[in-house]
């Protein structure tokens, strides 16, 4: 067990002070601020608009509460069918993402081989592609005329699930992989030495240790599946509406806020239930992490004496998953982006410097890309600060039961943005931010609202990336440091920060990726003078002609490359050498 203690000796007089003498009041103020800032952020930019919109749905024409919609909406057979579809898709999508994602996470985080970094960055690309692009790409593969048309799953449940896995594999690989990388392999080695089969050792030693990270990933993936919008709309054909698409249709097309509000509450209930389950799975397994000793992961060896059966399996699964699920649709995008009206070539990429055929855009694609990056920087900073604070507070295990419960609630609260429909948040902004809290300040047209909205979505991902790692810090280290006279700030700096920093790369990468690819909230807020890259792609895809299609796909490739690049760079945020402690 490696101990991490303050590097500089604490000042002698303080070392003589009894443990716990650091003024309790000041400590409470510190933690209060650390929890209060994120709560304020979430309250203003999420709870307030969402509640305002829900209120509209539950207020009758006379101004009193009107709950007749509840019975009406819940009395429809269609509603229950939709809820069933949503749960079915989410459960199967989550299970498959985990089953397929774990071997990939193992390979990319526990084995060293050439191209590992590139592959890690590549796996995240689908996560940010706009759903319009994924829709065209995926359906091009699955449609009767496509390479996988023979499967006949276009517009079916299987097609939607495949797309959900395509999007969410990155979440499993990154969240679990990042945690796995820091796991001490010696426990498993010891089990093997004592005669356990590799599978048995994995099942009884490694898997339990991974459970908090797996539960984290499962919760996120489930929420993403349950609230997937564009993919379901595009790939589900028409028979597979989910709660999320139904909220969208009821709100934007029918303006039936009553039905939308009832469905939103149903969605929030499902989400809360799922968070509760995931929280149970996590907390029962959480314990101090056995950290990796000063050695990088072993090199992958598929033949020769060092060959391991688990590696072969992981490589096989990864090859199939990456090859069929990721490469095929992405390759479709790349290949079609190289097709111009005058034949094959880079013409569509040259056109990125223009405003498109027949003036389709108001800015060039490059300008839109720059706007996206700028917004993503802001969103990332906000999300990392807010999410980091939440993770820090939620990683504490205070002795008072009330405080413990408060910590758990804080953790769960910040997952909610993943589970509430973007339409609800977007429309909520519109009805509340003309005069937020009665202030004479129209925020609805403020440019700052876009990164803020994206940060609300990205924050849960930051929390889920950082929290399992922080929770794995042995609390005895905090206590020991306290006993030795370290101030809380010193404890944070020397005990928590070095451990948290390793997950920061993942967190930053995710936040950036979410922002780059985010479309839901942006489409409500973006001002046309300054469209983001996904907005531009959406517009180009909305115009007829090979020229615009080609340019849209070239822009999608650009977005994918930017994501891969950012993920690669974020990875470098972590210390070089691959050693963790």
């Amino acid at each position, binding site marked *: 067990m490696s101990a*991490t203690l303050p*590097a500089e000796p604490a000042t002698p007089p303080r070392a003589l002070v009894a443990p716990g003498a650091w003024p309790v009041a000041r400590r409470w103020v510190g933690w209060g601020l650390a929890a209060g800032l994120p709560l304020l952020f979430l309250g203003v930019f999420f709870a307030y608009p969402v509640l305002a919109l829900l209120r509209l749905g539950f207020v009758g024409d006379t101004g009193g509460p009107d709950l007749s919609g509840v019975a009406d909406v819940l009395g429809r057979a269609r509603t229950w069918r939709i809820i069933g579809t949503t749960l079915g898709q989410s459960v199967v999508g989550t299970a498959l993402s985990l089953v397929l994602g774990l071997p990939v996470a193992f390979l990319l985080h526990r084995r060293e081989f050439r191209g590992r970094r590139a592959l890690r960055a590549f796996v995240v690309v689908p996560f940010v592609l706009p759903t319009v692009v994924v829709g065209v790409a995926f359906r091009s593969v699955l449609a009767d005329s496509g390479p996988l048309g023979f499967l006949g799953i276009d517009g079916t449940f299987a097609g939607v699930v495949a797309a959900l896995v395509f999007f969410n594999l990155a979440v499993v690989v990154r969240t679990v992989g990042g945690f796995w990388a820091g796991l001490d392999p010696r426990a498993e080695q010891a089990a093997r030495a004592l005669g356990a089969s590799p599978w048995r050792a994995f099942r009884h030693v490694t898997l339990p240790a991974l459970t908090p990270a797996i539960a984290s990933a499962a919760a996120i993936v489930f929420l993403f599946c349950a609230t997937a919008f564009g993919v379901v709309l595009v790939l589900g054909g028409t028979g597979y509406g989910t709660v999320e698409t139904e909220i969208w249709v009821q709100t934007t097309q029918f303006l039936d806020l009553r039905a939308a509000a009832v469905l939103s509450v149903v969605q929030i209930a499902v989400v809360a239930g799922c968070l509760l389950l995931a929280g149970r799975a996590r907390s029962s397994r959480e314990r101090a992490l056995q950290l990796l000793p000063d050695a990088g992961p072993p090199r992958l060896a598929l033949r020769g004496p060092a060959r391991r059966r688990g590696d072969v399996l992981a490589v096989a699964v990864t090859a199939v998953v990456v090859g069929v699920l990721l490469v095929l649709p992405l390759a479709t995008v790349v290949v079609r982006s190289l097709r111009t009206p005058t034949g094959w070539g880079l013409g569509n990429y040259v056109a990125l410097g223009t405003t498109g055929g027949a003036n389709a855009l108001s800015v060039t694609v490059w300008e839109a890309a720059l706007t996206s990056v700028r*917004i993503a*920087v802001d969103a990332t900073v906000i999300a990392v600060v807010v999410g980091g604070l939440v993770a820090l507070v939620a990683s504490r295990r205070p002795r008072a039961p009330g405080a413990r419960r408060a910590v758990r609630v804080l953790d769960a609260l910040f997952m909610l943005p993943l589970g509430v429909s973007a339409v609800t948040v977007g429309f909520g902004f519109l*009805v509340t931010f003309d005069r937020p809290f009665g202030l004479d300040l129209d925020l609805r047209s403020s440019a700052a609202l876009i*990164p803020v909205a994206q940060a609300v979505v990205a924050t849960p991902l930051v929390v889920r990336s950082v929290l399992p790692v922080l929770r794995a810090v042995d609390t005895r280290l905090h206590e020991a440091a306290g006993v030795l006279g370290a101030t809380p700030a010193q404890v944070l700096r020397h005990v928590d920060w070095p451990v948290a920093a390793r997950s920061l790369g993942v967190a930053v990468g995710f936040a950036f990726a979410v922002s780059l690819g985010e479309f839901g909230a942006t489409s409500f807020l973006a001002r046309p003078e300054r469209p983001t890259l996904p907005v531009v792609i959406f517009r180009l895809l909305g115009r*007829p002609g090979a020229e615009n299609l080609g340019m849209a796909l070239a822009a999608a490739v650009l977005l994918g490359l930017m994501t891969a690049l950012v993920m690669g760079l974020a990875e470098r945020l972590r210390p070089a050498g691959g050693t963790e402690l």
Partner: protein
Amino acid sequence: MARIATHHRTRRLAPYAALAVLPLAACSAIGADPEPAASGDGAGTVVLVTHDSFALSDDVVAAFEAETGLTLETRAPGDGGALVNQLILTKDAPLGDVVYGIDTTFASRAIAEGVLEPYESPAAGADVAAHAVDDGHHLTAVDVGDVCVNVDHEWFAEAGVPEPTTLADLTDPAYRDLLVVTNPATSSPGLAFLLATVAELGEDGWEQYWTALRDNGVKVVSGWSDAYYVDFSGPSSEGERPLVLSYASSPPSEVAEGATQAPTGALLDTCFRQVEYAGVLAGAANPDGARQVVDWLLSQDVQADLPGSMYVYPVDTSVPLPDAWAQHAPLPAEPLTLDPALISEHRDAWIERWTEIVIG
């Protein structure tokens, strides 16, 4: 040992973090440019609320700003349906001064909800009057566009099958499994096509028609780009269906450079007319500027710019169309239409019924 390693690590991390954060902070978007003036000042800014397909040429906008001294700011909070619904939700604190992009299918709802202020533009001629929604001049027609079934000429030539021409033809077994359309609940052309069938077959006949269409293998997808770029067999996609729901204005985009024949065409007897309207928003901070925008939208400059920038036809029929349009995208002489009030009254019920019939 571990202690030393950790210490090292922290130190090594610091420059990375600094390197990463500093240039990033410099390219932040917040504060990168001054906030445009809010609509509240009423002095030099006029805020145009529109749908997310809005695009006019920069020079046309610049000319307007130079001429009037106004700064035109645009906001596009979603597609046509979302736009109207947002205007309704925010009518106590309007999103801007003037709206452009309310179409036939939502026009009556917008007027009934009191979102609009009456204004009769002096620039409005007979063409605008012909498309009036009500007598109160709440909405001014700016452009028209027709949603029509498009056909892949090459496919039919190769297959040796005559092209269909009417809506009734589409239920003919000869055209089994050849048509792809979009869902009226999620796409505006899809809704227009549903309305076309109601206009053609009446409130009693459209349901049987869709049953027949469903039995004849019509494919329904959720959005236009999906239908056009995945399922349609036309030159810019790889699909298998030679009949797709699109616009009368789509064929010119498919004409290769130097070619004289369009590889696709619109079936002019299947078209439903969509008119897009502009109007002054009730409670506008700058109502005078709003009225100037409406006048400007009817000007020759904007009207002539519409086909190239927004793929729609100018409402003013005296404005010449681009050559390619004149050649490959004639506007149907007798498109199908429905009274906006009738649409407003039945739209949701029709969509619901359609969902039952076609999707189940």
